[in-house]
């Protein structure tokens, strides 16, 4: 059996394991048997509470992780940049600011928050392309531009929240990233949108493979490379925006997961994308579960845990610098 199959089996088992563990443990803890029986028959009060409150959170966490990881794979492919990540590049910050903006000024449509998130993500992505295109999307330049974009939108968001506070308008917690208090409504939004996005990502995976070649080679093969780039970018931004509008900004997931996945299953995107989705789901649910359990009844947001893990990981990647040509 080869490494790829073993990796898949392990990540699927780990994913099932953490899902069950996460469902069973918390302020209400039940045994596995009780949980399964309760879910099947619906006659256990405690399990019903878990299904109402904890299940949506688990599903949202799983989808968020999968979405962010796949979005990271796409960004890294299309920018040929191993450091590309929706969080680092400010795509999520743009999405987050625009989501808030939409909530404030056009609160009627629930779906509109995702739409606004997408707009914001697209604006960030566009700025990054504009400012780093000429230098050939050099990894470090993309990252630096991203930091600037990220700071700008985070600042704008804070400003908007402060202004709202002045006028006594509450716009939710100032901490953008949160997986607590997720409802079945959130699930109904993130599941279809997330699955559509991941499906689209799978559909363009041959193009991602093609982008491993130099631009001029791609053009010589009769492919419209700009169109390919735009389509992949749009899907990547869409994914990042869906995740951000529902789960807030979670940085680094799109960086760590694709990187480790490439080590395990290689760079063929037909395999890399599904594997990253599974691994991303595992990572975010694990982060959220431990964030919930470590210092209960207090919680550490998954995004905080990701930042703590992700920071050193990025430093580690930068240390291996020369392999990433240009960093």
């Amino acid at each position, binding site marked *: 059996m080869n490494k790829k199959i073993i990796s898949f089996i392990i990540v699927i088992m780990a994913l099932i394991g953490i899902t069950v563990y996460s469902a069973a443990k918390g302020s209400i803890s039940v045994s596995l048997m009780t949980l399964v029986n309760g879910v099947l028959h619906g006659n256990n009060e405690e399990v019903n509470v878990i299904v109402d409150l904890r299940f949506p959170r688990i599903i949202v966490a799983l989808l968020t992780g999968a979405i962010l990881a796949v979005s990271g794979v796409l960004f890294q492919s299309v920018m040929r940049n191993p450091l590309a990540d929706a969080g680092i590049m400010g795509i999520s910050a743009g999405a987050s600011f625009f989501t808030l903006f939409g909530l404030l000024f056009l609160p009627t449509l629930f779906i509109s928050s995702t739409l606004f998130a997408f707009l914001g993500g697209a604006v960030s992505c566009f700025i990054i392309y504009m400012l780093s295109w000429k230098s050939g999307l050099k990894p470090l330049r993309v990252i630096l531009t991203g930091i600037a974009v990220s700071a700008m939108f985070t600042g704008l968001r804070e400003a908007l929240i402060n202004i709202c506070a002045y006028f006594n308008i509450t716009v939710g917690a100032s901490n953008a990233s949160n997986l607590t208090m997720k409802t079945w409504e959130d699930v109904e939004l993130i599941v279809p949108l997330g699955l559509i996005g991941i499906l689209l990502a799978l*559909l363009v995976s*041959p*193009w991602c*493979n*093609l982008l*491993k*070649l*130099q631009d*001029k*080679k791609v*053009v*010589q*093969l*009769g*492919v*419209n490379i700009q169109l390919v780039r735009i389509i992949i970018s749009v899907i990547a931004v869409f994914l990042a925006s869906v995740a951000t509008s529902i789960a807030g900004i979670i940085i680094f997931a799109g960086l760590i997961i694709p990187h480790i996945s490439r080590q395990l299953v*290689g*760079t*063929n995107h037909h395999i890399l994308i599904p594997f990253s989705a599974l691994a991303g789901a595992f990572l975010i649910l694990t982060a959220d579960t431990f964030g919930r359990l470590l210092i209960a009844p207090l919680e550490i947001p998954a995004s905080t845990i990701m930042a703590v893990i992700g920071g050193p990981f990025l430093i580690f990647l930068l240390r291996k610098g020369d392999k990433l*040509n240009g960093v």
Partner: protein
Amino acid sequence: MEFKGLSFSYDQGRAFMEELEGRIEKHKITTIIGPNGCGKSTLLSLLARGQKQTAGAITLDGKDIHSYKAKDFARKIAMVNQTNHISEDMTVQELIQFGRIPYKKIWKQDNEEDTDAIEWALACTKLHDFKDTPVSALSGGQRQRVWIALALAQKTEILFLDEPTTYLDIYHQLELLSLIKELNTVHGITIVMVLHDMNQALRYSDLVIVMKDGAIKAYGRPEQVITQEKIKEIYDVHIVVNEDDETGLYIVPLSI
């Protein structure tokens, strides 16, 4: 393939090439030589649609090359670039499969024709034993053959090569040039290449284009074009051209 009134300039600046005229003969090996910066690679790139000329026309089979659809053009002309880069763990076969992109929708599986073309490309370049090897694990000479195989999988009538021997040692230079010769004589592929080495140009080409300062200074059979006077004029280098029963024509640079 013909070009007429061909002009080109970088960034709307001063014309780098003006009013070039010439033709590429079918089923022949045409080599472009000339000093550094003379426009050899640029001409090749213009002919391959890598860049667009500022004026003039290039026709292939009587049709302007820019009127071809991108994929149709990629079935007519394949290019081997001077520098190729692949940083990933792709295998030889996976890379060569990209050569079939001009023939199909990208998410389609390879059909029999595709498989045959890939097999043929592997056979021509003697890469069969390496088809599952990652490209990054190959030597320089093998790697250059992989890029040729990728171009061959495109099944084009015309193959362009931009300085294919530049980064290779003498053994692999010879190996590669005889492969190119074979592609021409056995499979009838029209070859257009840029070379630096005049002896290689003499030995392996049917026709030679000599360029200097963005202009075509000479065109013809190698022995007509690579002469003492012409080379002095173009490169400002004294050479002697000798003929030997065993080697045919060869040149020795003497002084500058």
